[in-house]
């Protein structure tokens, strides 16, 4: 397998959340990112944070059907981490020593922007989930986040049948949607 094919396989694995793919990418790239961040005024904890975020950016990209990686994963991750770290240093008005790893970088501004938008949506969604109260929150989480089946949820939450649970779920969903869109439209 050529490097390109290997990386393509890795990304496909990433898109379907295969632990092996995640682990391989971690092993091959984490050290470099940590070195970069520690050299540039950061702690290893910061490196873990930034690397996770970069992995999510990569994940979001990998899930897009249109996605074609035009450089190595290594280069891509470094570019994203570098950008994210600079941004964070700037936000905390900390000093950027400017230690580069002498690696090429690719433009990743658009990805990071859409990633941030997505993250903002997730935050709104989670906030809304926190506001609707129980049992709505648990039911919705069980069905939509943990992807449990309706009969299972009915049993777990003590509904006489799945249809009752389903009705309850939709009621909850409508409330959630209201709260979410109220905020979402505000943000636009």
């Amino acid at each position: 397998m050529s490097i390109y094919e290997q990386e393509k396989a890795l990304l496909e694995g990433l898109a379907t959340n295969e632990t092996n793919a995640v682990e391989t990418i971690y092993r091959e790239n984490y050290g470099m990112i940590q070195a970069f961040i520690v050299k540039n005024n950061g702690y290893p904890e910061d490196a873990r944070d930034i690397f996770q975020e970069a992995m999510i950016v990569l994940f979001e990209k990998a899930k897009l059907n249109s996605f074609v990686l035009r450089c190595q994963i290594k280069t891509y991750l470094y570019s994203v981490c570098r950008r994210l770290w600079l941004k964070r240093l700037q936000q905390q008005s900390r000093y950027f020593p400017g230690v580069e790893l002498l690696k090429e970088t690719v433009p990743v501004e658009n990805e990071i922007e859409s990633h941030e938008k997505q993250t903002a949506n997730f935050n709104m969604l989670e906030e809304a989930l926190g506001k609707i109260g129980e049992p709505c929150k648990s039911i919705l989480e069980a069905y939509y986040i943990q992807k449990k089946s309706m009969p299972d949820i009915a049993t777990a939450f003590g509904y006489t049948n799945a249809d009752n649970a389903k009705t309850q779920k939709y009621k909850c969903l409508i409330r959630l949607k209201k709260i979410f869109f109220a905020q979402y439209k505000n943000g636009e």
Partner: protein
Amino acid sequence: MNDTLLLDAVERYRNGEMSPQETILFEELRKNNPEIDQLAADHNFFLGELDKLSEIKAYRNSLNEVENKLANEGMISENKGKGKANVVYMWSRYRRTIAVAAFIAGLVSISTATIVSMYSEKKNVAVITPLVDTKLNQFEHKLKQIETKLNDASAVAKEPSKPKFEANFRATGFLVDGSGYIVTNAHVVNNARNIIVENKKGDQFFAKAVYVNKITDLAILKISDTSFKKVTNLPYTFPKSSTELGEHIFTLGYPREEIVYGEGYLSAKSGLFGDTTSYQISISVNPGNSGGPVINKNGEIIGIISSKETNADGVVFAIKSKNIYNALKDLKGDESIKLPSVNSLKGLDRVQQIQKLEDFVYMVKGN
């Protein structure tokens, strides 16, 4: 169609749970009813976001799993280092910050020093060092005594008078009258309780200051010791014409317990801050040279060494010998001093000049 039904429809449509017939119906409904279509689109988007959130959460879980696994393997540093490792870590982390801080600190101290020195240069009226040696080396003095004794083994009988006391300063002076008048600096004998002059041979005589002028920094001592024998034939004179820039000059003095020769040239016709009673000369002198004669090549004493600029090399100030006349004028009546008038140094080479001169240059000590 109420919200719940629509939600259900959208959800089933998304999940592909509708029968083909139902799908066609649903799609038609949306096409013909913009309001419902908008609602369905909202639903669809919302469900999509929920889906993505679910995926991200699952993905985050596997990220954390992998991270923990690697942390357990030691590939990812779990926590901040402890103890020594922490120091090393902190060093590597803050190395640049420290470097920057050190650089700034250096810059600040240099600029502060510059500002301070600029400021103090303006303020310092005279950063000059009087050339009196106040750190006397008594050991060297005793050694010389022994040496002289050994040399003059035959002359043991006429043991020179040696007043016994510890001197705490040393400078230079020279005879201006064979009957025992010595010129030196006022700052040399100022505050001195006892003054002793010592010639090259090591003979010491008590002396007292008969004239001290702090403004011109001139003093005239008179040897009061009875053991002093009047000397004649002082070889030097004082110049009648003015001295020119660049003239070669030399001096004899006691920066050590032994007489030391130094030579240089006249650099300026005035002293510090345009002081016209002094010359600026360039010569190598040290504490102890104060009061030494500055002599030109013709054997004329043009000045008396008094001080040097502390911060500059070879910037030495000498009081013009003209001031001696004024001093003598002030003294007249009390003491009768006759300045030497016959110059026997002119035309001699330097070594011969020095040989003739050195007997008349005295060490001035006291406490």
